[in-house]
């Protein structure tokens, strides 16, 4: 017991004197509670999501709009809205301004079947327009999310911890005594991890595609370009975190602070459509959100480079800014 106490006491002292880690450890749960409260708190979630073909929804214009447990989302562009309906991102699409009212329903959607009954109960004359084309399976929608999540963990933790280990062992200090520059060192780390990520992602893609019977609707070369730029942005993020710290606990905590919100908000598991606007805005700070938005657009909708250009530009800009910041703040040795 005395030996256990001695080790416990020494470890506690080590932890308490590592101020960065201590502050962070106390701050993380508070931030998680606040974040979860914002994202998942508030009134109970609606059961159905219905797109309304209009710029702005006025609930007094139609009795259907007064239904409870239904989230009515304005859809100004019909083609986009129909696309969402096909992919079951919305359960029903209604045009309540036409006389009689028209609605589109995805015949493969169980939720669509129920919400259609609700509409017809308030407006029996509404005209039905069934959506044609294959419905999007959840697994197809999830597939890019799984690839992206694997990429995120490998990029952030794989690179961050390696640099930290090099610094703590003194290997970085030895490299510093050579003509090698910080930019060259960081670039080598980026390229090494990028190669690994691309190989792993390709294996995952081929394997999961074969198992779930996935068919890529877009251009494979564009998808590879997106994977390269997306991986680069997340590797750069991992390097920036590990650029100067020497505490595993602090770096681990910071990496968790980045991965948790991305896990929840970047759309790996569920779409954030219908969530508060500020949540969507926050989600678009993260590289994974842009990577997944663009990947789904290419893989599921067959989008071209023009459609995903904003995502590509964001990821490329983020990579450059983070790499420059990482090189600037890089420390070869423990301060």
């Amino acid at each position, binding site marked *: 017991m005395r030996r256990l106490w001695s080790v416990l006491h020494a470890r506690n002292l080590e932890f308490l004197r590592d101020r960065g880690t201590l502050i962070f450890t106390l701050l993380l749960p508070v931030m998680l509670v606040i974040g979860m409260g914002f994202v998942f708190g508030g009134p109970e979630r609606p059961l159905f999501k219905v797109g309304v073909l209009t710029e702005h929804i006025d609930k007094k214009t139609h009795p259907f709009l007064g239904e409870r447990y239904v989230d009515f989302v304005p859809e100004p562009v019909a083609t986009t809205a129909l696309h969402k309906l096909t992919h079951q991102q919305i359960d029903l699409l209604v045009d309540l301004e036409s006389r009689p009212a028209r609605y589109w329903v995805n015949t493969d959607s169980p939720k669509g079947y129920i919400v259609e009954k609700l509409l017809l109960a308030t407006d029996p004359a509404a005209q039905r327009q069934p959506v044609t084309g294959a419905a999007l399976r959840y697994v197809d929608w999830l597939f890019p999310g799984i690839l992206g999540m694997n990429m995120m963990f490998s990029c952030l933790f794989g690179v961050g911890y390696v640099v930290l280990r*090099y610094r703590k*062992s*003194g*290997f970085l*200090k*030895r*490299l*510093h*005594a*050579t*003509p*090698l520059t910080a930019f060259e060192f960081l670039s080598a780390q980026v390229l090494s991890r990028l190669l690994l990520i691309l190989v792993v992602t390709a294996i995952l893609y081929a394997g999961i595609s074969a198992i779930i019977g996935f068919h890529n609707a877009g251009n494979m070369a564009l998808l590879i370009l997106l994977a390269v730029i997306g991986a680069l942005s997340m590797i750069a993020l991992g390097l920036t975190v590990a650029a100067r710290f020497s505490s595993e606990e602090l770096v681990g905590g910071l990496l968790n602070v980045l991965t948790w919100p991305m896990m929840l908000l970047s759309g790996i598991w569920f779409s954030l459509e219908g969530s508060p606007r500020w949540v969507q805005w926050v989600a678009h700070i993260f590289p994974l959100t842009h990577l997944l938005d663009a990947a789904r657009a290419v893989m599921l909708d067959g989008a071209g480079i023009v459609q995903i250009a904003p995502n590509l530009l964001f990821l490329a800009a983020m990579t450059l800014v983070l790499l420059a910041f990482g090189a600037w703040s890089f420390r*070869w*040795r423990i301060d």
Partner: protein
Amino acid sequence: MTTAPILEVRDLVKEYPAATAVAGISFSVPEGICFGLLGPNGAGKTTTIEIMEGILPQTSGEVRFRGEPLGARFREAAGILFQKTALQDFLTVRQCIALFRGLYSHGLDVEQVIRLCALEKLASRDARKLSGGQQQRLLLAIALVNDPAVLFLDEPTTGLDPQARRNFWELVQSIKAQRKTIILTTHYMEEAELLCDEIVILDRGRIVAQGPPRQLLREHFAEVLLELPRHEFPQRARELPLKILDASDRVEITTDDLEGTLRTLLAAQVPLHNLRIRPANLEDLFLDLTGTELRP
């Protein structure tokens, strides 16, 4: 013979929030010699050598390599062996050397360096599985890959057994024979005496002695040193008009009048059957200049 300095240290100061590690030192290192930086723990040796290596910024003062501030030319021309260096995991000895060779624009062939440091039989072995002496030979090989004009060795033999240490000294002497400039810090005075042509002794961030070891010994010491077991040295003899120094388990008396000193000791009835007489060495000089008390 005076040769142009390859390195010049001018008014070097390094301050940390809690202490001054280097308090304004100046010296120059002529090309082609082995230059020793000696001093007790905390004297500022490692801080000084790391500033000279260009990996630690100084608070003030400057270090010049061939008349220029340390820069890209210096990094290409310097070879460094730190006190402690970890290498990348899962690499063989040959791969470790090749990794560092790739960081320099010119240098020796990897196989040449392997032969130079007698690593032929270990070249394919995992670098993590080397003994202490073998590890130091590998680190020396890495320090030599760029065929450096100046080689920094920071306590290179600390922790090695006597055989490995002597083997390492032979390697350093073979490098010295090629007229390379070597900057050496060490706690082993025997090592400094054997390898160094010129030394600087630091204490509390300042230079307390500088010059060739033999010259410093002549300047600071008489010809001989008498050693007696401490427990056999009577208390009353401490009052004798002699230069007496306590050194762990023995008492040391330095003198230039051996016969007179022996007569004095006999007259004071000091037992002399365990007396040892030897010339002063660098360790005596070191203790004389820096004291014998344990540093905090």
